[in-house]
């Protein structure tokens, strides 16, 4: 059996010098972490007797007790709603659930019906909840055989992806916040499935997408294309742009795939031929500058799909923006050097 791939990858290895240096660095950084943790712990311990004294003083003086640092650190005041580009399109207070030990709530959610971004909060209601919450970590939530926290479109037929990032700056002993992203080409989905862990079990629910971010569309007349190759059967028909993502739809008669070639250019390859039919694809701004529509371009994440090898409807590319973009700045797309404006 051909083990060339395995043999090739096995040639990549660390030298002993690299390993020693790296482990020394790891040890140093983990010691620093531990020191910082113990410092925090000492501050907490110092404040507990202080709190007791204060409470006694408060009761004695009939005054209201104060709140201590460990209970208000990293106060969350919104994430998606802070971005002025999309703040008006963010749904807040979307969903909540509790099992008596923790409360899970979807604090914010925004979507263009291809990309969903949301902020989920877990709040511990008792000691058991706090203990469970301490074990709720971003890296463990990717283990789908155990706990999982993610959103997926429940009524899409094309493939998609999901991601979770903890907003660690807001982590306290009673609270944890996570930013969830789900991404799937092809719009007009209505519901998303949220799967989330509670202390004793995983649960799931459906969320209706009522509020969406604004979108602009560019329709492309195929008569504008000059087909110079006999096997050129592939052309874009529509571009949809929202602050969260851009999708290019098209028609094709052969089988094709959006792929990155050696020189870094995006290209669409025909399976039965080797001709690259698209050599460049850009979003064009009102000041004339361009954004390359490629998974390697900065600020973009690549997703690429085909709906069916038999269908002639095709999603050329679907890319989501790392940060929301102001769609009023974009006037059209440039496809193989030709410019197509967005509809007014």
């Amino acid at each position, binding site marked *: 059996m*051909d083990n*060339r*791939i*395995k*043999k*090739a*990858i*096995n*040639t*990549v*290895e*660390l030298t002993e010098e*690299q*390993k020693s240096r*790296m*482990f020394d*660095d*790891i*040890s140093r*950084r*983990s010691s620093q*972490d531990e020191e910082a943790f113990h410092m925090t712990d000492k501050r907490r311990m110092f404040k507990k007797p202080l709190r007791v004294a204060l409470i006694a003083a408060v009761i004695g003086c009939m005054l209201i007790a104060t709140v201590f640092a460990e209970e208000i650190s990293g106060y969350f005041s919104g994430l998606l709603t802070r971005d002025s580009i999309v703040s008006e399109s963010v749904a807040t207070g979307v969903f909540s659930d509790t099992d008596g030990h923790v409360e899970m709530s979807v604090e914010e959610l925004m979507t263009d019906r291809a990309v969903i971004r949301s902020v989920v909060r877990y709040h511990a209601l008792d000691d058991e909840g706090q203990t469970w919450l301490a074990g709720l*970590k971003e*890296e*463990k939530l*990717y*283990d*789908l055989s155990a706990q999982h926290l*993610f959103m997926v479109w429940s009524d899409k037929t094309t*493939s*998609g*992806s*999901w*991601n979770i*990032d903890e907003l660690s700056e807001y982590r306290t002993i009673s609270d944890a916040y996570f930013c969830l992203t789900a991404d799937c080409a092809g719009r007009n989905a209505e519901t998303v499935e949220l799967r989330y862990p509670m202390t004793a079990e995983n649960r799931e629910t459906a969320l209706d997408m009522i509020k969406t971010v604004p979108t602009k569309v560019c329709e492309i007349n195929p008569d504008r294309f000059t087909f110079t190759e006999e096997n050129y059967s592939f052309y874009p028909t529509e571009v949809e742009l929202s602050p969260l993502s851009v999708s290019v739809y098209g028609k094709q008669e052969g089988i094709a*795939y959006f*792929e*990155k070639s*050696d*020189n*870094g250019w995006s290209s669409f*390859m025909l399976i039965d031929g080797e001709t690259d039919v698209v050599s*460049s694809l850009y979003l064009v701004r009102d000041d*004339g*500058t*361009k*954004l*390359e529509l490629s*998974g*390697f*371009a*900065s*600020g973009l*994440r*690549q997703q690429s*799909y*085909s709906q069916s090898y038999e269908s002639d409807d095709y999603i050329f590319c679907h890319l989501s923006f*790392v*940060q929301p973009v102001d769609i009023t700045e974009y006037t059209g797309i440039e496809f193989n050097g030709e410019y197509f404006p967005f509809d007014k």
Partner: protein
Amino acid sequence: MRPERAEELFRKYADGVYRQCFVILGNEKDSEDAVQEVFLRLIRSDPAFADERGERAWLIVTACNYCKSQLRRSKYRVCSSIEEIPENTGVDNDVSGRDEVLDAIMSLPPAQKEAVYLRYYEDMSAENIAKLTGTSASTVRSRLHFAIRKLRKLLGGDFYG
């Protein structure tokens, strides 16, 4: 986690994690940083593994997720003309002395490289790769199909797939 245990795990798995990160990220510096971050997370979270398989799975998933987050965090770049668009950044261009098969693998897009690594080096099924990467098994198979096709084109002869 006890220091002795941390060092034992590092010595046992550092090469494997490094290979995975190098294939996805494409350069030595970023891969070293990724390895350190993965093992720091291991030390901080100190998970209880049932067996070696569990250890390995945890490291593969964590490395995969960290590498993808690093790829996402590249800076926003504005180009005013086609001529200004740079070649792929972050990829080691010094290929002298490097295995030609490895060169060919490294020329693949990140999603294809990741699929090739997980399928042919870690012997994972398309279904498990799909769960790990948050895609569908059919997307994984498509990526593998096009990756192997390109590798065949670059290297010639029979190949996996």
